[in-house]
């Protein structure tokens, strides 16, 4: 377990909903609902956090959800209880998944790989537990390839990495580097906020 990352997100937990629960979440909700509408089969959801994403889940699914922060998951409990389906939430580090190989049909992430310390390693770990041909569905913010946004996001990362996410991650490249086949990248705001659909090659 990466205790440093866990401590960072435990510390962020009390204010997380205040900072992210209104503006960003309301803005992104339609895109998340569209992405999560693909949920089918045995699902792993990475980084459930305080459960803000649960409102965008389609009802009736059985979802295994993990997060590195027990304090985040503690705040998620009422949302988990209110979900019209089954969510089994547990504290786990993506770098050290306790699931058997090829356990899941699909993996979903939501604003996660801005924060995973070793993103390629984390994605490879997810690939291990994903069945061959299984889908990786990501809602992420990444760095930009365009100026001046690229500079701004590099500067912001120097500040935000201390208490939250990195702003300049090359997540699409990381997905490819981790051995997935990228099917679709859908830019939702500039080339920064996007959905990524990829598969583990059979």
């Amino acid at each position, binding site marked *: 377990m990466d205790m440093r990352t866990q401590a960072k997100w435990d510390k962020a937990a009390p204010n997380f909903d205040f900072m992210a629960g209104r503006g960003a979440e309301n*803005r992104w909700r339609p895109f998340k609902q569209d992405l999560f509408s693909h949920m089918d089969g045995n699902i792993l959801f990475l980084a459930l956090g305080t459960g803000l994403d649960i409102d965008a889940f389609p009802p009736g699914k059985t979802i295994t959800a993990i997060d590195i922060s027990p304090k985040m998951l503690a705040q998620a409990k009422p949302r988990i209880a209110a979900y019209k389906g089954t969510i089994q939430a547990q504290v786990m580090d993506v770098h050290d998944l306790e699931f058997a190989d090829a356990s899941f049909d699909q993996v979903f992430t939501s604003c996660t790989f801005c924060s995973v310390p070793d993103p390629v390693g984390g994605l490879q770990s997810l690939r291990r537990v994903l069945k061959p041909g299984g889908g990786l569905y990501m809602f992420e*913010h990444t760095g930009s390839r365009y100026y*001046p946004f690229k500079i701004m*996001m590099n500067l*912001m990362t120097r500040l935000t990495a201390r208490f939250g996410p990195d702003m300049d991650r090359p997540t*699409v*490249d990381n997905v490819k580097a981790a051995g997935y086949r990228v099917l679709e990248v859908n*830019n939702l705001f500039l080339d920064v906020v996007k959905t990524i659909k990829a598969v583990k090659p059979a």
Partner: protein
Amino acid sequence: MDSRLYFVLGDLAANIVAGLVAGWLCALVISTGWNMFLAMLLAMAIGMLVGLVLFFPFGIFFGAMEIMLPIMFSGMLAGMVVGMYAAMMPVSGSLGALYGAVCGLVGIVTVWVANVGLRGVRGMERGN
């Protein structure tokens, strides 16, 4: 751009305020006779800093990246324009704020136009 009225108005307000504050500050800080290039660099940095600070209150209500990037850009643009202007001739705080607010409006419209070009499905192309 997000077509929902709440977010359109939020984008406009955030960028106009960021430009206004950045322009006002730069008009106060930069004096006539400064080296124009150095004044521009300092003013752009002030503008970006203003955008960064204002991201937190506006971001809570209107979004994350969709607020942070435009207001930092608008602050930088307002700083650049007002900073260079103030280095050439005296600019009052209120005039700097007015120019800054206009720069904020230009900034968000520029980002909206850029977004039209960049958003959408990109298939398997190289990307971040």
